[in-house]
């Protein structure tokens, strides 16, 4: 809207996901791993175990190479990437929390310095000073999470900030503490997961067994506690938002299921190592590593998915449009755009008005400006495969565009634009896939019930045995179905009223009973 849209053919969202998930998997290790280093060092001194200490020195090198290099650069990488893909959202987070970021930077600076001195200090410093550096490292790393967690949680549950725009109210938002504890616990688990990687490579079997047992002690308790904090976390997310992950939004539900599977498997395979700790193969530690990665990745995906359609909940949509009008919004609110049109309001639109010559170019531009922060044509969340499958006519596409906000627990923002722009976008989308021949001519006399169903109901329902709501319609005849359609909104709270014409209602009512014959 306010900024040009970076046209990433394979998917801007996918690029963010790749950078962000690999980063969090390392950054949480950077925190838990810090405490692991210090406590393992103390353990080695206490038990006077020179071989454990030797391994720990090598493990420190691995730790620094992973966290200080990849962890730090990918952290900056998220910032770069969201700035390129969600510039308005990034700008909002920077403006609201610049002092938070600046404080985080102080901790980050201490963290990096301490990590390097801890690594180089192994052969230089006395035990006490070395351990002291380790503690400074862990405390600084943890505090940096204490800060970032506030801003991350804010995006999903901004709470009272929406009314007051107060720093602290946004920072200590409803999911702040459960999210912090959830991340803390996971960070400790990851310390064990990563230690298994270097630990299982040891040739000395006594040492290997000891490292495996010690590492698993970091994983097992964490995975017992994680569900408790997860439950607390979910409890602080508004019910209507969480419903997305409970069946209303297919992808979020999928991630919610995969997090259960991944975490259960991480837990079980970690337990398995205790049977014969000395004989744990390297491959098993890699498997546990990948399962833990799946757990963390699923968590981040759920968080991102249920936040949809927003980038900052109830404030800014994922496509950078403000949910409400307010002074200084630059006209980028949904209300203003619906009134004045997307192309005249968007700063980076080449076609400012739609003519018969530029219709396709304008349609493509509307897609780029409004849809492409999440969708692509052929890549991630690609739109063509949906169109190929559904074979919708332009009318059907246009209908769906006008009711985007009803789709899958309101996962999409409403279309922002005029009727003409909607038709232009629909016309452009029609060119991406073949249209079913019977749907091409839609007249008042001969309306296809299937088309009406696709346009009005198919966002949430399927004409399949798995959809209980639809199956329940089987017992009604034409006139009863026709009547029910007029009062859909009284059937359940979540059903919107039917918005089609009378002719369309009748076509739909004729079509539904036929499906059960």
């Amino acid at each position, binding site marked *: 809207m306010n*900024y040009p849209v970076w046209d990433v053919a394979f998917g801007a969202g996918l690029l963010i996901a790749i950078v962000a998930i690999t980063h969090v998997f390392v950054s949480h290790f950077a925190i838990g791993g810090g405490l692991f280093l210090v406590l393992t060092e103390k353990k080695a001194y206490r038990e006077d175990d020179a071989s454990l200490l030797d391994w720990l020195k090598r493990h420190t090198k691995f730790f620094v190479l992973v966290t200080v290099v990849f962890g730090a650069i990918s952290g900056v990488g998220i910032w770069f990437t969201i700035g390129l893909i969600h510039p308005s959202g990034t700008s909002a987070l920077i403006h609201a929390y610049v002092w938070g970021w600046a404080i985080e930077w102080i901790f980050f600076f201490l963290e990096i310095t301490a990590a390097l001195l801890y690594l180089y200090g192994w052969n230089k410093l006395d035990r006490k*000073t070395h351990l002291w550096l380790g503690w400074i490292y862990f405390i600084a790393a943890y505090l940096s999470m204490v800060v970032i967690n506030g801003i991350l949680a804010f995006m999903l549950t901004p709470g009272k900030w929406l009314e007051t725009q107060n720093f602290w109210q946004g920072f200590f938002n409803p999911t702040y503490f459960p999210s912090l504890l959830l991340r803390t616990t996971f960070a400790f688990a990851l310390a064990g997961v990563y230690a298994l990687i270097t630990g299982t490579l040891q040739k000395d079997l006594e040492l290997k067994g000891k490292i495996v047992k010690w590492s698993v002690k970091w994983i097992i308790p964490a995975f017992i506690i994680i569900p408790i904090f997860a439950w607390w976390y979910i409890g602080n997310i508004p019910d209507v938002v969480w419903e997305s992950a409970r069946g209303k939004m297919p992808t979020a539900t999928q991630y919610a299921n995969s997090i259960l599977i991944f975490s259960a498997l991480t837990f079980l395979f970690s337990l398995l190592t205790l049977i014969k700790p000395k004989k744990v193969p390297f491959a098993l530690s890699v498997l546990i590593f990948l399962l833990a990665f799946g757990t963390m990745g699923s968590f981040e995906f759920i968080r991102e998915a249920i936040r949809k359609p927003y980038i900052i909940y109830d404030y800014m949509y994922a496509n950078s449009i403000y949910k409400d009008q307010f002074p200084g919004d630059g006209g980028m609110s949904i209300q203003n755009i619906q009134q004045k049109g997307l192309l005249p309001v968007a700063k980076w639109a080449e076609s400012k008005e739609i003519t018969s010559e530029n219709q396709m170019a304008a349609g493509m531009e509307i897609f780029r400006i409004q849809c492409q922060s999440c969708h692509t044509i052929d890549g991630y969340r690609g739109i063509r495969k949906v169109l190929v499958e559904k074979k919708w006519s332009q009318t059907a596409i246009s209908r769906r565009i006008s009711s985007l906000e009803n789709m899958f627990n309101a996962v999409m923002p409403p279309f922002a634009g005029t009727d003409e722009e909607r038709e232009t976008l629909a016309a452009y989308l029609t060119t991406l896939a073949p249209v079913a021949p019977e749907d091409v001519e839609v007249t008042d006399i001969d309306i296809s019930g299937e088309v009406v169903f696709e346009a009005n109901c198919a966002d949430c329902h399927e004409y399949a045995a798995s959809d209980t709501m639809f199956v329940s319609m089987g017992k009604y005849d034409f006139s009863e179905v026709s009547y029910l359609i007029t009062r859909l909104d009284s059937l359940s709270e979540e059903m919107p009223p039917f918005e089609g014409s009378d002719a369309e209602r009748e076509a739909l009512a004729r079509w539904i009973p036929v499906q059960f014959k």
Partner: protein
Amino acid sequence: MGTEIIIPAIDPMPLPAPFWLFKVLLVLTFILHIVVMNFMFGGGLIAVWTRFFGQKNDKDQRLFKDIVPKIPSLLAATVTLGIAPLLFVQVLYGQFLYTSSIIMAWPWFLVLVLLVLAYYGFYIVSFNKDKKSRSIGWLMLISVFFIFLVGFFYSNNFTLMNTPSSWAAKYFHDPSGWNLNLSETTLIPRFLHFLVASIAIGSFLLIIIGLFRWKREQDYARFLIVRGGKWFMYATMVQFLVGIWFLISLPRELMLQFMGGNMLGTVSLLISILGGLASIFVMSNGIRNEDPRKPAIWAMGITGIVVVFMAIMRDILRTAYLSPYFKSSDLVVKTQLDVLILFLVLFVIGIAVWVLMIKKYFFTPSARAAD
């Protein structure tokens, strides 16, 4: 289409502290970043040069061995110190920087990939015990080249950010982010200005290592200081030519800012020229001495002052470039005083802890041997 000038609207959220405070922090943290970056990049360049074109004597070999282990930590410091100015520049000039970044999105994104690769390259070289192997030299060269590219992409973005009139044509021609700012006449001289400065200031890495070694092995330490001093002098001499090229490549009204148009800009340029000449003079006399330490320290001190004025000039130039599109008075300020105070308090504590860490690390007598 493509000829219009599009400037994104200012973020509606107020600025959480006065403009001047962000400006001071921006310039200050930029100076810290650029100096450490110069040490890393310039030091790396000198190391690579010595490796490939140096003499086969012991001293040149040692020079390479002594510099390369310092590069990874210097890169860590460069990145870490770069975060702060990047944060503050986004607060003040986000509408310009986000746009130019998006226009050249892929090169800007590649910065991250190049940094990770260079970083690991530096670490491999640094951890390699036998630094004589041929592949180590090449790996160092490739890693330094990646940093060179990062710098080049930075120059592209920070010149593009200043010239909104070129945005629309570039973006609408290719919205997929495969743009650079090669048509900008100031790009090459500006980039060279930074490159040559990196060599000049990177030479201080040799001098500083020399200063620390002086008591233990004076002969080698003297070699380092003299070698560093020569790199510094030649680079600074070249800088006079590059600097003039950069200055005359600027649009006339911007160039005149430094020739009477802007008092601070003009004074800064004068101080920088005089400082540059003085540092060359002091260094060239100093390295002929048996003990070149004092003059070398003086030359570094003078250069430090020059860097501060250069950073001020850079800011004046940006302000002048953006003056048709941006007025600081357009920004609404609503200071978050409590958080600001917390930041300042933590900043002071942070510096104290940092100094304590460094002190304990470098100045605690090594007890490991007795451990």
